[in-house]
């Protein structure tokens, strides 16, 4: 079985995300703001985006949080389009999302503005360009809170300066399997990078999905931060690829057996919990990435990973369902979608 070109392989890196935090100078930060001010900011931003004429923002989706039900809010969180904070927010807040879901602008979360650009695969530089484009657009018509010493001023001092959080979402099953992931975590910590599991509580990395992001936002340029994360990600990719190879070469039959067993369960089980699904999906994804499983597309398995999340699943089914029914529907959804093209 051949390995794809792992250095450029987007299989290990699922997505790249840029987040810029910005505030308007003439208003207190959201926590100290009243609802009149909150409304003003929302209208102002909506106007700026509508009048922008920017191609990427044509026919954008405007979401007023107070008009959204809990499930719809949670779906947006599961798709990584808004943060759990925004969903839980009691203040008047909103989100502007581009049709292709590459851009998401959160309004009145912790800061007045959180501009987010997401790309599939290892594309941090592209994401930064897009984020900057949106930022420049808004900056032209606004008075950002900015000081020459501390840069862009934010609610929390951990975000000042560039206001930039650059992160990469990675699938690292081999590193977890062999325990090498701990070493990765140590090294990243020393480099002031945060590594955390995306699914599951705290450090348990359900589905072997991890997010690597910068912790320092002040003192470096935006390009330096992006380069730093990109370099770290490239090295982690190399490690993951090397360990995959090693595991496979040690005992190819056992390796494939594990993958195919998971595939068998995933495509035939009648009852599947989220946790079990995520772990099976991780194995299948690894199989696809390594050319072992050929009948399932990578995009499809990634789409399924999102659809089986609790709120997205309920949305898919179209009605409120009990937890037990959810597990049945989840298995059904997977069987239905996995071989689609």
């Amino acid at each position, binding site marked *: 079985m051949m390995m794809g070109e792992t250095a450029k392989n987007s299989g290990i890196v699922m997505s790249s995300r840029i987040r810029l935090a910005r505030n308007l100078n003439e208003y207190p930060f959201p*926590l*100290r703001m009243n609802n009149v001010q909150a409304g003003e900011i929302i209208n102002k931003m909506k106007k700026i985006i509508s009048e922008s004429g920017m191609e990427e923002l044509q026919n954008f989706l405007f979401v007023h949080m107070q008009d959204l039900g809990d499930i719809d809010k949670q779906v947006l969180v599961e798709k990584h389009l808004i943060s759990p904070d925004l969903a839980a927010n009691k203040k008047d807040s909103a989100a502007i999302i581009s049709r292709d879901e590459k851009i998401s602008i959160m309004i009145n979360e912790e800061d007045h503005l959180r501009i987010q650009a997401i790309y599939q695969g290892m594309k941090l530089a592209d994401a930064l360009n897009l984020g900057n484009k949106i930022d420049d657009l808004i900056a032209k018509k606004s008075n950002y809170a900015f000081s020459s*010493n*501390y*840069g862009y001023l934010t609610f929390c*001092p*951990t975000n*000042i*300066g560039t206001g930039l959080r650059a992160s990469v979402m990675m699938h690292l099953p081999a590193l977890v399997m062999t325990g090498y992931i701990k070493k990765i975590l140590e090294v990243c910590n020393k480099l002031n990078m945060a590594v955390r599991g995306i699914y599951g509580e705290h450090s348990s990395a359900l589905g072997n999905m991890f997010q690597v992001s910068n912790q320092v936002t002040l*003192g470096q340029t935006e390009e330096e931060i992006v380069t730093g994360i990109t370099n770290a990600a490239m090295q982690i990719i190399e490690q993951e690829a090397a360990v995959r190879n090693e595991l496979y070469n040690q005992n190819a039959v056992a390796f494939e057996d594990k993958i195919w067993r998971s595939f068998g369960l995933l495509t035939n089980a009648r009852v599947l919990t989220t946790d079990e699904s995520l772990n099976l999906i991780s194995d299948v994804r690894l199989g696809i990435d390594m050319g072992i499983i050929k009948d399932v597309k990578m995009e499809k398995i990634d789409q399924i990973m999102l659809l089986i999340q609790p709120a997205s699943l309920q949305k898919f089914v179209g009605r409120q369902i009990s937890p037990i029914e959810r597990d049945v529907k989840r298995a059904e959804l997977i069987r239905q979608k996995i071989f689609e093209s």
Partner: protein
Amino acid sequence: MLCELCHMRPATVHFTNIVNNQKVEMHICEQCANEKAQFGFVFPSFSTSLNGLITELLGFDIDSGNSPKFQNQYLETLTRRKQCEKCGMTMEEFLKVGKVGCSNCYTAFEEKLNPLIRRLQGSVKHNGKVPDNVARKASVNKKIEELKELLNKAIEREEYEKAAELRDQIKSLEVSLNDDGGNG
């Protein structure tokens, strides 16, 4: 219950803070509390002696009225009462929650903020992108400085016509700066 910060040790320090009608609760362990205290965060004392408790609450030692220690602690209390002119947040509030109320707080609380930022970020000088209007202002200011130098030289050389020209240029640039300042 477990500490909300490290999720390892039991939470023994519990505190509730009400900021602007919002309740903020924290339950953390002694170790994390001490670590946070290093950053200037203040937590209610868990000292058992009455004097210790009052010292914490009032911010100074009762029985040493005029000692230098008293004066320092008195100044400390005054510093903590400092308010941001724009949003009304106090330094004390900031020290408790670690977040600011508005952009002006960064100026109002500079004294306590600067060392905190240095510890959090490893630096206190921004080195990245600058918003367009700020960059524009900076370059206009620079141009004004250059013109002022030329103006002085022209006056020295008694080239009064040239000086008048320069003075007009400077004036129009300064006016454009003021216009820009009101830009929302």
